[in-house]
Structures are given as structure tokens and as C-alpha cells.
């Protein structure tokens, strides 16, 4: 790892590990993308304005839809107190919905309702939500309560709840599985499927004990699955076999993912894609700072993959 450091002084061409078709010798950690290198890539390929656009879900949605990319639907966007006062959840919201902060990260501040009985909605976990609860949550979102340190105001994005593709829904006990595809420019270079578990409380977040499943780029089949660093072959809660599962409409997923980065202006991007029951693959979000844990899931180095596309890591 310190070879890179010494190459600063040498001013030589450094090491071009994985360049060309011959993979790096084993034992080498050089094909793996570290956070330092990832940040350098982002500085190189992702301009400030594009990162801002990607961070704001509303702005990203506008840019994606302008490029003809299928996104999740929209019920309402509440970005100031005037709109908040005019908003009446009982009147304006359907039975199943999702409230998201436009600038939230890592799923913070997202509330989902799966059904409605009378004047009360119910979350996936079964806990009730009254109209006051919903309004309080929207207000907290608008006040920037979930939007990091730098933002004092935010927009609440209200979307209809997504119903997952039935073959995908059968894999998991509850929650919405989603796909993460990392792209360099318009080339997908690595993909994984994130499957919620009972332990992850229906959330497709790897930190919260969701399953990460590496998906082969060529075939769209799951080749490897991990939960918290342990290799598994079957879903621990449903007992369904994961290895060999074919993601439906894989070519469409790759096509969509490849368009997302350029549409927003990002050179290095991670697209989050859900598979809707009726509409097929839909983009939920495009990340300007995609995580590097995917390398552990797929057992492949992102650096080696990018070197194949001619990236020289200067």
C-alpha cells in the first residue's frame, strides 16, 4: 500500500496493477479501492454542482426525468412552512407512502406506511401513525432535522410506496430489496443486491445487518451473499436459496444504471435501483459518494475493474 506514497517522490508512473487483462498477483491489496483513492476519484470526476444535485433527491429526480430515466413516483414536495400548513395528510396522502428528506443520507428520516385504517396509518412494523405524528415528522424534515450539519432547511419528498417484484419479494421476510450498481461514466463496473432481514428491521442497509449479495454483471445472477461478513447461501429468515437467483430484467437494470451518472453529471456514481412490481427497474437515488464495502460483498477490487476501463489513477 505504501508504494503509492513513494511514487509521489519518484514521480514515476507508479504501479499499474491490474492494467490490461492480467489481474494482479494474489496477496496484493492493490486492486482494492481505498477511501483515500475513492475520494480522489470523486474529486476528479464529480464536479461540485453535480454532487449537490445528487445529494438533493428532488433536484436529482428532475434531472433524471429530464433524461428520460424511470424514477419512483411523487405525491408531493414540501419545501417550506407555507406548503406545510396547506398540507393535510388525511386529505392528500394515499394508504401506502414514503416520506423522505430530500437531503437525508443513509436512510435517516425515512418513514414508510404500508396500510391505512380509518384515520391511522401503519408502519411495516405495525406501529400506528396518526395525522399529528405524520405532520410532526414532515415538520422535522423541513426543519433539516435529518439533513446533516450544514443544512438548516430541507424539503420533504412524499412518494407512493413501492411494491417489490414478486420473485424478489419472496426472498425477504419484509422490506424492499434494492440494487446498487457502481458506474464509471456510463459503464457499470460492479453490482450488488441488498436484502433486508428481520435483524435489519426491513431496511436494506448493510450496517443494520441486511444481506449484501454480489451480482454477476454479465448474467445478473447472485454469486455470493454475505451478512455481517459471514458467507451465506440461503436467506436466514425465509430459508430461500440466494446463490444463483436471477435478477429479473437485468439488461434493463444495467442500461438504467449506466445512464444515471451522465444525467446528473457524475463521472463516478452508485445508483440505487428498485424493481417495482408493475414498472420494473426504477431509480430511487444516485450517490455521488458510493461506499466501498461492495468489494467485500463481490470479492472483487473496484480498482482492478476501473483499470480495465483504462483508468490510470493519477
Amino acid at each position, binding site marked *: *500500500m505504501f508504494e503509492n*506514497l513513494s511514487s509521489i517522490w519518484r514521480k514515476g508512473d507508479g504501479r499499474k496493477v491490474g492494467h490490461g487483462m492480467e489481474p494482479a498477483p494474489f*496477496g*496484493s491489496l492493490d486492486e482494492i479501492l481505498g477511501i483515500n*483513492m475513492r475520494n480522489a476519484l470523486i474529486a476528479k470526476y464529480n464536479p461540485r454542482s453535480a454532487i449537490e444535485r445528487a445529494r438533493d433527491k428532488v433536484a436529482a429526480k428532475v434531472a433524471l426525468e429530464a433524461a428520460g430515466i424511470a424514477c419512483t413516483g411523487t405525491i408531493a414536495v414540501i419545501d417550506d412552512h407555507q406548503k406545510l400548513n396547506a398540507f393535510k395528510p388525511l386529505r392528500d396522502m394515499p394508504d401506502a407512502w414514503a416520506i423522505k428528506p430530500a437531503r437525508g443520507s443513509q436512510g435517516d428520516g425515512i418513514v414508510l406506511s404500508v396500510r391505512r385504517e380509518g384515520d391511522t396509518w401503519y408502519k411495516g412494523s405495525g406501529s400506528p401513525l396518526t395525522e399529528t405524528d405524520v405532520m410532526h415528522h414532515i415538520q422535522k424534515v423541513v426543519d433539516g432535522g435529518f439533513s446533516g450539519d450544514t443544512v438548516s432547511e430541507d424539503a420533504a419528498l412524499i412518494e407512493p410506496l413501492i411494491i417489490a417484484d414478486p420473485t424478489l419479494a419472496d426472498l425477504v421476510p419484509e422490506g424492499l430489496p434494492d440494487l446498487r450498481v457502481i458506474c464509471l461514466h456510463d459503464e457499470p463496473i460492479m453490482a450488488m443486491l441488498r436484502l433486508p432481514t428481520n435483524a435489519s428491521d426491513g431496511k436494506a442497509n448493510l450496517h443494520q445487518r441486511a444481506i449484501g449479495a454480489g451480482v454477476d454483471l454479465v448474467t445478473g*445472477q447472485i454469486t455470493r451473499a454475505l451478512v455481517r461478513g459471514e458467507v451465506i447461501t440461503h436467506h436466514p429468515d425465509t430459508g430461500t436459496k440466494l446463490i444463483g437467483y436471477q435478477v429479473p430484467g437485468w439488461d434493463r437494470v444495467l442500461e438504467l444504471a449506466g445512464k444515471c451518472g451522465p444525467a446528473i453529471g457524475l463521472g463516478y456514481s452508485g445508483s440505487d435501483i428498485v424493481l417495482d412490481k408493475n414498472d420494473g427497474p426504477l431509480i430511487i437515488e444516485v450517490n455521488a459518494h458510493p461506499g466501498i464495502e461492495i468489494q467485500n460483498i463481490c470479492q*472483487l*477490487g473496484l480498482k482492478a475493474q476501473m483499470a480495465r476501463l483504462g483508468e490510470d489513477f493519477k
Partner: protein
Amino acid sequence: MYSDLITKIRRIRDRATPQVRRPFYIGLGVGLALAVLVALGLSNTETFFAMPSSFGDQATSQAIWGLKPSNLLMVLPLGAFLVVLARSFVGVKAFGLFTPMLIALAFLQIGPIMGPVVLGSSVLAGMLMTPTLLKLRMTRVGFLGTLISAIVLVLVALQGLLDTKLQVDAFPVIVCALVVERWWRQWEKDGAKEAAWQAFNTFMISVVIQFVMVSHIALMLIEWSPLLMPAFTGLAIAILGRYRGLRLSEIHRFAPIWLERRRVAKNAELPEGVEEDRRSGAPDTRRISAEPDVPEQPEGVPESIPIAMNERAPPPGGAQANSAQSEPPTVPNSEAQFAARFGTSAKLPVNKTWVIGSPEDV
């Protein structure tokens, strides 16, 4: 039991490749240098337990370490340098970007023991208050404002309790309030364990920075010339800040990839019929999964074992599979794997699923 541990460590060291061994030695060297500096800082500490009121009008940092209050600014770049080292080389996760440096500075202003006591008690008080404050559904600014008032209350109470005068100005109070807020956010997001771990990391870095800041060498440099310290650390940060390699913590994080490759390679060496070129074409996982004979994998997995190393582990069936896979030439193969993606994406998806769908097809 210790000899077991030592032989185990020795075995691991012998097997490690130079790529892993070198950063380990460098890390060890840097660690030792830091330890020496911290020891110097510790030896420079006149007194640990003196109450700030016993120093009279003298500033705490001057009384304990001989660091003039006007020179507090000079040690700041040193703190920044250590934070850069901890973040981009070691990969320590701590609250905030330069929060550890600010905490260290606050410690210098309050004292080596009193500093952590003040910080600890204000964070504790803030933590106890936060659940109640959150119920009031305040905005973030309101929340922070209330926290600041609470922390000042705690400080006043501490001064009364210990019957001393703490030289705390506005700066440490804000740092404390920010730490409380960070702590609570982390707790909400990743749970108590992760938050506690980060808090511990933050605290440890702060303590290390604090003692490096007051070590003989640092103080000597400052006394020599006020320009020396900022210029020297600024240059060092500019050089080291360009580092783009793996962090020490990432070697640990991605070690499973490396270890599994090794295991695969070892299994591949066992059967006699295997050629040499398998050794150089390491990332077997990719080739196996990219080749059309994928259906081999699901067959090899025993249904009863949920956690199995699947395709590569079993030598009996695996020997056959391995020799079968080593037949196609390695180099053009990985090329073809990539080119194939363009070709296949143009084809009908039905065709593709059919090819790989059932094991009987192959």
C-alpha cells in the same frame, strides 16, 4: 497460553506477503515514534492532580507544561498533522473532522486530569438531558443552545464541588456541546456500541494529541522560532495529504478477500493436473462466475450447511471442476469476459437465462 499466541503471530507474520508486511512495519515505526513523543509529553507534565485555583493568575497550560497561552495557537498545526495521520493513514473513525484537535486544545486549557473530567461530566449531563430535549421537538439550533446552557451549569456545579476556579472560556464549552450532539446522532444512527467506540477513539486521539503538543520537542521548536512549527507541519501535511493508498484499517477490512483468494490458490495447487498459469491468474472468483459453467456451483453446495465456502472448498468434486476450468487459456479469457458483456447485453435475456438455467445443459 502466551506461547501459543506468540507462535500463532509468528506463523501469520511468516506467511504475510511484503505488501502487507511493509505497511505493518511502517505503522509500527510511526506508533513507536508517537509513543516516545507521548512519553516525553508525560514526563514534561509537572503535576497531574493540581487544582487550577492553586496556580493563581497563571494559565493552566503555562503552570503545568510551560506552554504560554499565546503559544497555544502554535501547537494547533501539530494537532492538525496528527489528525491527518490518524484519519488518512490509520483510518480511525472519530467524531467530526478536527474535533479531536479541538478537544486536545480544550484539555490544554483545563488540565490533563481536569480536562477529561470536565468533558466527561458535560457529555454525561448532555446525554441525560437529550432524550427530554428531543421530546420537546426543538430545532437543532434550539437544541444546541440548550445544551450550551446545560454544560455551563455543569461547569458551575463542578467549580462549586471541587472548590476551584476552572479557566474555561467559551471555546471548550462549544466543543463539549458539539461532542454531545455528535454522540447522540451516532447513537441514533448506528447504535450504542458504534457510538461508544467512536467516542473512545476520539478521546484516545485527543489524549495522544494533547501530550504530543506539550512534548519537549514541540515546545523547543516553538521557543526556537514561532515560524518553525507551522511551516514544518504545513509542509508535512501537504506531502502526506496526497496519500491515496489503503488505510491501515482497510487492510483489516478487506483482508477476507485476500485470505479467501489464498485459500482458493492453495486448493488449486493440490491436484496434480493443474498448470502453473493458475498461480498468476489469481482472482478465481471472477473467472468462475463469469464462465458459462456456473451451474457447477449450486450443485456443489450441500443443502444442510448454511455457511459454506461453496464452490471452491470441496477437494473431491472440486478437483475435477478445477482441472476442467484451467483448460481454457487464462489471458484471453479474462479479456473475453469483459467483451462478452457488450455482446450479451444485445442478446435476448431469455436466451441467457436458458443457457445457465439448468445444470443439465452443460
